[in-house]
């Protein structure tokens, strides 16, 4: 089997639908966060007033960047502790029909860190180690709030970007509550019910014992899956109810559900670019970014597709089989939807998988790794936009140096303070990937968890820390992450990967907000052109290439060479 026309059109159609829904939705998000009224105001407003009263929020208060950030960090910390306690105590708490015990301290820490940071890295197998209470009250809960946190961080940054000599970034509590009431909850309820209709279970009944057709028994795990699945995708979370994630037929029963799950994870990250365009009142800027990032997404999806339909030459040589690489894939998705999912789950920083990334062909592995290393091919909820803005700042600065102009972006002068902070935000990512990977591969604790030998084993570890630093959560699942070493190291990398860049970006937002907006002149370097856009892409690709190339050469590129020279294993 080679590229099929149906498969190729299918991939392009999904991306077209995401853009077609995401762009208008970005306009809606802009209205929500600039105080606009909704068609359903009569439902939203009283519900929000009730929530303000229950939480104790005065919605008229405005916050500067420090107050906004302080509230964000505090509530994130508290929710993480809450989830940690649920994971530890789930064995003695209700909603546990399958009698699942509490987690060890290190696994509970890793899981709490993973879900509060929107990573959803899983060192546990859902159906074996998470009670229904944990799935609902810790996992589903944090899948909403962590998505909302990244989302409001981006909104606050946008407010700082367009503020004129002001301190205010808005009210954190109002923003956080409105993301839930006006965006995430309504979408999740509708999507969850649609998923049930298409075959995703939603029940509090325990596992079903079936008496199989040839006379043995099979224990079939189920549970409140659809409600988790909906927000797992919409919130670019990715942490599955079951170990096999969206490859499990109960999470993703048909080709159609897989398409819907891809659309759900792409919707808000693509929408936020349009929201950004509305905030800075510059459509062209958004258009340039849409075109370039969509092109990269399509290239990535087709690189995976080409390599997967090409099949495994070693299997062909040893056994005479020819056909696509179907190891770790589900037939209802086939190579095309599996490949599209690989590219999208890492572009949108979701981390859900409908195919086992560990069994991808070597050059296919490059795509998810690179997308997570860039971390801005649309990127995750809110934080993807923050990364795009961070690299825009850096590109403006570099271009300013090259043409000898004072760097400015959207009418704001970029000075030493902003550049230092943006550089910190940029450098923390490669640091958190490469240093822990290096430590892991020289220690017994790190290498003993590898499933696959040789270069592929190295890629398993590199992938783990890349996924953790990018707050993605997809895995080369052969790596046994449930050890004290990986639980702690990955947990710490996820927390730093999330909050260091958020803190740096808030500090930038605060200092940008205070600046006056200077009118555009003929001397202004325009950022809304394809020329500038190409420099932007060149900057993050070159930064990525220089930083990560040695690691990628040892991993997937080395494995490809190994495969081409027909050497199996070492």
């Amino acid at each position, binding site marked *: 089997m080679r590229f099929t026309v149906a*498969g190729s059109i*299918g991939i392009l*159609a999904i991306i077209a639908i995401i853009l077609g829904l995401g762009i208008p939705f970005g306009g809606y998000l802009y209205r929500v966060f600039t105080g606009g009224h909704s068609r359903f105001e009569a439902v939203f407003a009283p519900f929000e007033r009730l929530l303000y009263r*229950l*939480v104790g929020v005065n919605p008229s208060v405005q916050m500067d960047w420090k107050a906004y950030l302080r*509230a964000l960090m*505090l*509530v994130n910390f508290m929710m993480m502790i809450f989830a940690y306690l649920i994971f530890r105590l789930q064995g003695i708490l209700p909603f546990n029909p399958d009698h699942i015990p509490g987690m060890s301290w290190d696994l509970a820490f890793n899981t709490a860190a993973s879900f509060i940071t929107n990573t959803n890295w899983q060192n546990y*197998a859902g159906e*074996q180690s998470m009670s229904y209470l944990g799935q*609902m*009250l810790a996992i*589903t*809960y944090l899948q*909403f709030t962590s998505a909302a946190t990244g989302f409001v961080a981006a909104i606050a940054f946008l407010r700082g970007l367009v503020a004129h000599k002001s301190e205010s970034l808005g009210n954190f509590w109002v923003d956080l509550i409105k993301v839930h009431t006006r965006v995430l909850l309504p979408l*999740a*309820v509708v999507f*969850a*019910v649609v998923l049930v209709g298409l075959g995703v*279970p*939603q029940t509090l*009944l325990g596992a079903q014992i*079936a*008496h*199989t057709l040839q*006379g043995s028994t*099979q224990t079939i795990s189920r549970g409140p899956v*659809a*409600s988790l699945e909906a927000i797992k995708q919409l919130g670019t979370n990715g942490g599955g109810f079951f*170990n*096999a994630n969206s490859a*499990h*037929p109960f999470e993703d*029963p*048909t*080709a*159609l559900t*897989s*398409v819907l799950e891809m659309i759900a994870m792409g919707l808000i990250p693509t929408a936020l670019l349009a929201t950004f365009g509305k905030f800075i009142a510059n459509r062209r800027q958004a258009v340039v970014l849409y075109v370039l990032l969509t092109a990269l997404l399509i290239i990535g999806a087709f690189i995976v597709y080409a390599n997967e339909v090409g099949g*495994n030459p070693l*299997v062909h040589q040893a*056994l005479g*089989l*020819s*056909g696509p690489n179907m*190891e*770790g894939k*589900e*037939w*209802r998705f086939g190579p095309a939807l599996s490949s599209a999912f690989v590219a999208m789950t890492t572009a949108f920083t979701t981390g859900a*998988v*409908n195919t086992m990334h560990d*069994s991808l062909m*070597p050059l296919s592995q490059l795509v998810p790794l690179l997308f997570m290393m860039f971390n801005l091919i649309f990127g995750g909820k809110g934080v993807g936009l923050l990364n795009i803005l961070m690299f825009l700042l850096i590109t403006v600065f570099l271009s300013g140096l090259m043409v000898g102009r004072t760097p400015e972006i959207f009418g704001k002068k970029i000075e030493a303070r902003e550049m230092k902070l943006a550089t910190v935000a940029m450098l923390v990512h490669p640091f958190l990937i490469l240093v822990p990977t290096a430590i892991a591969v020289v220690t017994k604790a790190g290498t003993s968890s590898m*499933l696959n030998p040789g270069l592929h084993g190295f890629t398993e570890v590199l992938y783990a820390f890349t996924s953790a630093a990018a707050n993605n959560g997809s895995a080369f699942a*052969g790596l046994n992450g449930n050890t004290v070493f990986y639980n702690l190291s990955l947990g710490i990398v996820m927390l730093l990967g999330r909050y260091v860049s958020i803190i740096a970006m808030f500090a930038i937002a605060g200092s940008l907000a205070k600046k006056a907006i200077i009118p555009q002149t003929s001397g202004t370097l325009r950022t809304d052109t394809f020329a500038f856009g190409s420099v932007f892409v060149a900057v993050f690709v070159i930064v990525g290439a220089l930083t990560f190339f040695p690691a990628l050469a040892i991993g997937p590129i080395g*494995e490809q060479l*190994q495969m081409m020279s027909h050497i*199996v*294993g070492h």
Partner: protein
Amino acid sequence: MVNFWRALRFTIVFAVLLGFVYPLCVTGIGNLLFPYQAQGSMVTWRGRIVGSELIAQMTTVPWLFHPRPSAVNYAANNSGGSNLGPTNPALIAEIHHNLQVVERQNPGIAVSQIPTDMVESSASGLDPDISLQDAFLQVPRIARASGLSPIYLRQLITNSTTGRTLGIWGEPMVNVMQLNMAIVKQIGTRR
């Protein structure tokens, strides 16, 4: 301190809203509208639940269709793939083993006819569907063991085929549980 209490109140209020009210509402609506799907698409035969339409189960007897290989032995409470990398010798060994099983059970078929999806393990270990090529290769064996005619079985596969969604998404496939239930209804379970 004000912020501390506010954060605590947010944590609890939203835990109740998102962790209880939301999933329980979806459970209520889901079970009301789609009771079969909501409970896991369980299939009943002579008063007993024999499995889920969406979950592959182990079938090794010759008169039933066999699902794709499973790295977890069709344990529906422990899903997962093999996670073997493309250059791992263990992957070649695993596929070789699966290939031998297929050749032993279906004597007379050539390796060049066997599609990779028939001998490579699925991602979940519970893939409920097989390709048409896979299904048709099993027809002679099932016809011999069940006494059903090959024409009937081929017709059954054709009638049970699900095409690509909107002609572009997914692959043409047949659900193994659906095929096997049709066979069981014809000949009984033959314990």
